C-alpha cells in the first residue's frame, strides 16, 4: 500500500488541470466540465483521507460534493440553455451583460 501522498498529488494534478480548463477555455460547457473535474479532485482527497484514518466522514462529504455537483450541473446547464436561447452562443466572452 502506498502512502497517502500519491493520492494527494493525483488530486492536486486533476485540480490544476481543471483550473487551467476554467481559465483558458471560452466554451461555457467545457468550463462547467472543468469545474466538475475540480470537484472530483477534491473527492479523491476526501476519500483517501477517509481510508487512511478509517473514518467514514470523508466519504460522507464526498457524497455531499457529488450531490452538490449535480445541483451545480443542473443549474449551470439551465443558465446556459437560457443564455443560448437569447444569444445563440455559448462563449464565455459573450456573457458581458448582467441583464438582457
Amino acid at each position, binding site marked *: 500500500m502506498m502512502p497517502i501522498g500519491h493520492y494527494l498529488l493525483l488530486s492536486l494534478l486533476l485540480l490544476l488541470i481543471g483550473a487551467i480548463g476554467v481559465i483558458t477555455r471560452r466554451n461555457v460547457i467545457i468550463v462547467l466540465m472543468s469545474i466538475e473535474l475540480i470537484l472530483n479532485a477534491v473527492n479523491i482527497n476526501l476519500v483517501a483521507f477517509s481510508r487512511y484514518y478509517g473514518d467514514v466522514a470523508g466519504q460522507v462529504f464526498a457524497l455531499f460534493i457529488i450531490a452538490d*455537483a*449535480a*445541483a451545480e*450541473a*443542473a443549474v449551470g446547464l*439551465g443558465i446556459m*440553455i437560457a443564455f443560448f436561447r437569447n444569444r445563440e452562443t455559448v462563449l464565455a466572452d459573450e456573457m458581458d451583460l448582467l441583464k438582457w
Partner: protein
Amino acid sequence: MLQGVLAFVQTWWVELLCAVLIVLVVPLIAGYIVLVERKVMADMQARLGPMRVGPHGLLQPIADAVKLLIKEDLIPDDADKFIFWFAPVLSMTAALTSMGGIAFGPWFQVGRDINIGLLFVVGVSALGPFGIVLGGWASNNHYSIIGAIRSTAQLISYETTAGFALVSGFLLAGTLKVSDIVKAQYTDHVWYVFLAPVGFFTYLIASIAETNRAPFDLPEAESELVAGYMTEYSGFRWSLYFLAEYANMIVVGAVGATLFLGGWLRPFPNVAWLGWVDGLPTLLLAVTGVYCVMRAGKQPVHVQVMFMWAVALVCFLVALIFGVVEFAHLTSSAAFLSQHPVQLLRSMYDGLYGAFWFLLKVSAYIYIFMWLRFTLPRFRFDQLMRLGWHILIPLALVNVIAVGIMLALMSSLGWNRWLAALLTTLGTLVVGMLLIRWNDKHAAAASGSIATDNTQVEDSYAG
C-alpha cells in the same frame, strides 16, 4: 512476478473463470436468445421461423455471427471516427461488466465479495446509454441523433423507476449483497414478488424500457427512425450493439430474478415434501439428451450431426452430475458419499443446480419480454414519458413508502406478514389507480400536444 501471478490466479480462480465464461459465453447465449425470439415470434405469427441451418434452425445464430463478422466494416465519411469506434465498445463493456455482479448460482459470480452487490449491476449498466447516445451522435445522421436523444431521455427516466422498484426489494432483503438477498428469501420463506408485487411489476415495465424493447423500443423504432441510433452501423460494430442489447436483457432479467423471484432457489425451497422437485432438472436434461440423440441421425449434414451429439453429451454430463448427487442424497450411504469423484461432483452440484433454476427464471423473464414485443404496438414518445414520469415513478415511490410501512407494521406492531403485505399493496394500487385516472384526465386535455417542454424539465432530475 510469476509467483505473484500464480498466487493471484490461485486466490481468484473462480472469479477469473466466471469472467472468462461471461465474455465467451454471453455472445453465444445472446445469439441463441435471438433464435428463441425468432422461434417464439414465428409461433405467435403462425409460421415456422428459421428452419434451414441446422435442425429447426439451431445453427442459425452461428451462421448469423459468421455473416456479421465477415461483412465490410463501414464508417461513414462524415462520422466522428473516434467516437463511432468507441461507442459500441462502451455499450458492450458496460453490459458485460455489469454481469460481473450477478450470481448465476451459489458460487457462480465474479464479484463475490462486493458488498454493494446489485447496486453495482444497476450502476454499471447505467453506462449503456452513453454508448447509444454517443453512437447516435457520431453517426452524423438525423435519424441516429433523434434515436440517440430519445434513448437518453427514456433510459434516464426509466432508470429512476427501476431504481425505486429495486429499493422496495432491498428494503425487504435488508442487504445489497446478491448472495445475502437470496439467503434472505430462503429464511423468509417467500419470494419477494409476493410481498412487493407492485415493486416487481414496476421493475418489469421499467426494465423493458431500459433495454429498449418493444413496446418501448422508440430509440430504434424501425418504422419511424429506420434503426434509430444504429442506422449507420453495420457488421461487427452493429453486432456489438446487438449483443449489448441482449446482454442487457439477461442482466435485467437476472436482477429481477435475484431480487424478486428467489434467485437460484428452487420453488418452495423450504417445503420438505416438495423435495422431488429437485429431480426435475435431471429428468429434463436427460430427456433433452435423449431427444438430441434421436434427432442426430436424421440430420443431413455432418456438422449438424456432430452438433446434436455434442448437445446431447453436455446434457448427459450435467444430468449425470445431478443424478449421482441426488442418488447419494437418497441413499445417504457414507461409503458412497466419501468416494472422491462423488465428492467432486457434489462440489459442482450446488453451482450447476442453482444455475439451472436461476437461468430458468431469467428465461421466463425474457420470455415475457418477447411475448409483449409481439403483442403490443409501440408507444409514442410523449406517451412513454408521461407513463414514466406521471405514473410509474410516483407509483414506485409510493411503493417504497408502502414497503417501509409494511416492515414497520411487521416489526413494531407484530402484524402478520401477509396481512401487512396485502394492505400495503392494496394501498399502492389505489394510489396507482388515482394516478392513472388523473393522468387520463390530464392527457385528454393535452392530447395532440407533446412533452417537448417537459423533456427539459424532466431531465433536470437526472443528476
